[in-house]
């Protein structure tokens, strides 16, 4: 019985000690490092330096907070130099350019521009060390008037040697999707 008493006393005192062990340190916030919040696709008309560049942008701040700027009008039969930029704008005071990370690992990344049934041809203007496309800089060769939806995709670890991948078709690329956004466009 005495042992029991000792035990309960021990239990009680341990509980008290543990309860008092409340450290007041608050955990450090984590700013997710790999987040991509924003994709901006800028199209500059090559033979018309006075034209305003056209900017498609998609911003996702999480939990369904999405802002899309699209519906822009391209000029029929024009030729555009397109560049894509990806950003982390989680902290508006500290915007990070994720495009740099993509460039550093260019052999593991590729952008795809899908414009089904369109007269626009997208050609890659850049390549990694193996001679495969990356897609940060492309040429949009616009044809006749039309309207439609364009999907811009960034794949991580695609198989760039698979059939069609280096021509911009991700069907056989595998890998996983880091970005997949849709924009509406018009050609007039």
């Amino acid at each position, binding site marked *: 019985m005495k*042992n029991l008493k000792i035990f309960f006393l021990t239990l009680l005192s341990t509980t008290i000690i543990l309860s008092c062990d409340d450290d007041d340190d608050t955990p450090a*916030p984590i700013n997710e490092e*790999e987040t*991509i919040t924003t994709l901006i696709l800028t199209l500059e008309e090559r033979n018309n330096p006075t034209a305003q560049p056209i900017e498609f942008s998609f911003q996702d701040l999480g939990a*369904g907070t999405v802002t899309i700027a699209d519906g822009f009008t391209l000029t029929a039969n024009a030729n555009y130099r397109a560049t894509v930029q990806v950003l982390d704008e989680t902290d508006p005071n500290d915007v990070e350019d994720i495009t740099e990370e993509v460039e550093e690992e260019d052999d*593991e990344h590729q952008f795809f521009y899908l414009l089904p049934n369109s007269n626009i041809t997208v050609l890659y203007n850049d390549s990694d060390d193996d001679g495969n496309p990356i897609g940060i800089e492309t040429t949009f060769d616009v044809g006749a008037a039309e309207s439609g939806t364009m999907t811009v995709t960034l794949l*991580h670890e695609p198989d760039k040697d698979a059939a069609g991948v280096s021509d911009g078709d991700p069907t056989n690329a595998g890998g*996983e999707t*880091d970005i997949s956004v849709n924009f509406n466009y018009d050609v007039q």
Partner: protein
Amino acid sequence: MKIFLCCLALFIYGYCQAQDCNYTFTGRLIDFHDGSEIAAAAIKIIESNSYVTSDIDGNFKIPNLCEGQLKLRISHIACEDKVVSYDINSNRSETIYMEHHTEELNEVSVTTVVSTMETKTAQETLLKSETLEDYSALSLGDALREVPGVSSINTGNTIVKPMINGMYGSRLLIMNNGVRLQDQEWGVEHAPNIDINAAGQVSVIKGSAALAYGGDAIGGVISVNPVRVILKDSMYGKTILSGQTNGRGFSTSTMLNKTWTEGWFASGQASFKKYGDFEAPDYVLTNTGQEATGFSFRGGKKRFESGFEVYYSYLNNEIGILRSAHVGNASDLVNSINSGEPFFIENFSYDINSPKQDVTHHLFKALYYKRFKSFGKLNLQYDYQINRRLEFDVRRGGRSDRAALDLELQTHTLQANVKLDANSKFRHRFGVLGRYQNNFPNPKTGVRRLIPDYDRYEIGTFFTSEYRINEDVLIDAGIRYDFVNIDAQKFYRTNRWEERGYDQDFSSIVIEDSGTQLLTNPIFNFHSFSASAGLRYEFNDNSYLLGNYSLSTRAPNPAELFSDGLHHSAARYELGDLRLEQEVSNRVSATFSFNNDYFSLNTEVFYNYIDDFMYLEPAGVEEGIRGAFPVWEYKKIDANFYGFDLSANYRISDKWALQNNSSLIKAWDLTTDRAVIDIPAFNTVNQISYRNKVWNNFSASLRSEWVFEQNEFPNNNFETFVATQDKMVVVDISSPPPAYHLMHFRSDMDFRFTEKTNLNIALSINNIFDTNYRNYLNQLRYFADDLGRNVMLQLQLNY
């Protein structure tokens, strides 16, 4: 006092040189537990090699003793032999306490084969070491599937979570050598950290009737215990070495035990496993290798009246996860499902790359027990566990080598149990428990925390009783109360906080606001009551009936409350809910068992109604920059589970035997009137075996495993836009794969070298016909087929 008596004895001895042989020793034998007299015990006088017997009142008398030492060995049926010695220098009278309880004796028995059940009226099945040894190269979850009604929910073939009657994770309680395992089973891809090679026997208890362990075991209890300690001077051990073709790996385990008559014991065990990529019939499952290292040490002193034990175990598991199962969004998932084979198929390799897990578990335990005369036994136990879980993802910017998840969970538990067995009809147990737990998610991951920082306090107390009405009928009952306090510190992104409506209901818990993130301090208190009552009726020596009712209450775990993140292999966003409350289960079960020399049958039926069953289910699709993701939320529903488990053995002759294990379970979500997800389909295992003792104990068995297609499942399919096809496509995540039938073969032989040394050689072939199949309860079924043929050779040396 003793020294004084000795001195006195010596003094008297020296003084009276002449030998007087006319002293009388009168003794009285009393039962240690209930104080009753022990009649008809044999008392051997060691010096003279003669015997006397105790009378009906436990008295005995030894006349004509000479001066000097008297040494007696007392033997009685169902008692441990007791040796006592007295100095005789006058007439002397002594009371001798005997340990007279067969059941208790099992704990200190001189035979190693004694195995006791932990419950009396619950549905309990025991797996002995011979069965566990067959699974030395696999995992605990694989071995448990030997029990009808126990299945597993897998992520690949190396992450195997046991499932009892359709329930897993927090609804199962896993005890490792008397310590409740605290190892972060937050999700389907987190398997229990137990080394099967450290287990001497495993008890599976369906339902929550084992209240001494916890009140929240809605699914059941798995109790893993080391080999029993024997009370004699002995040293024995075993070494198992196995190699297999699938995974091109090996597993080795060795164990050594030393025991002494005085009750001291020490044992050590170590195991190591290494596998490369496993293979499906048609392709290599890239990045599915495993490396596991475990060791444990146990020592102490075990006597009837008191004893202690210290135990330490270590386990590290590095597990690769199928590379192709890491997908970016719903469109990737549908491509994987529809393509029919994994995207990444590379040549066989032993490398384990991201995605992978690296989990380390330390367990330390100290136990002390003491028995009190005419009262019972007191157990005091302290245990400490550290579980460190690292998970690596395929990441950008060279971060794949940095863990994306880094959690450290530390748990201290202090408990006291008292077993009152003074009355031979009644047996009571009661106990108290205090537990403190701290979780630390390392912020260095650069990924928002899946599980937040938290402190968890738990106090539990229980009382159970059993009463033997007569030879044939036993009843038992128990109650338990648990208090759980969770004090967490969690960051929420402000937009998620508002989207969940927490800004309305929980604004008071916000302690810091950085604009985009909120630091909150959720505190939860849960009071849980559980109870159990049961009956055991023995019809005759061959058959019995068990009936049991149990009420159990489970508080939500941190994953259910706080989850907030992307689940890559399911391409879904998982969200916890701060509003969850406890779930309450009411389970009734009945068992009929029949057993004779040729035939044995065990049938179990159960019905389990669960109020506020916490359940992860789809709640819409979130469109973001990665594309579309289904969002799954923890919700509460009312559900019922019912089914039967059957096991039958028929011995055709002394060499041939047939065996069948079958189980059926149904689970229904009563709130939305549809089936519950991830419930095993009807399955039946039939085996024919041959054993011939004369041919070196040769045995061979052929086993057929037939798993039906699950045709009751919730339809969680949704549509997503696939850009390459320029259309919306149905993502079929719900349809279970078709039924499958596998054949397995196993054969073994014993070679005896000396009386104590023998070698067992076993050859087994799993999936003999290299059948392609996918298992509904394997989370990687969307991406790849299950394992193809595996040939394994296992050598076991016992010494």
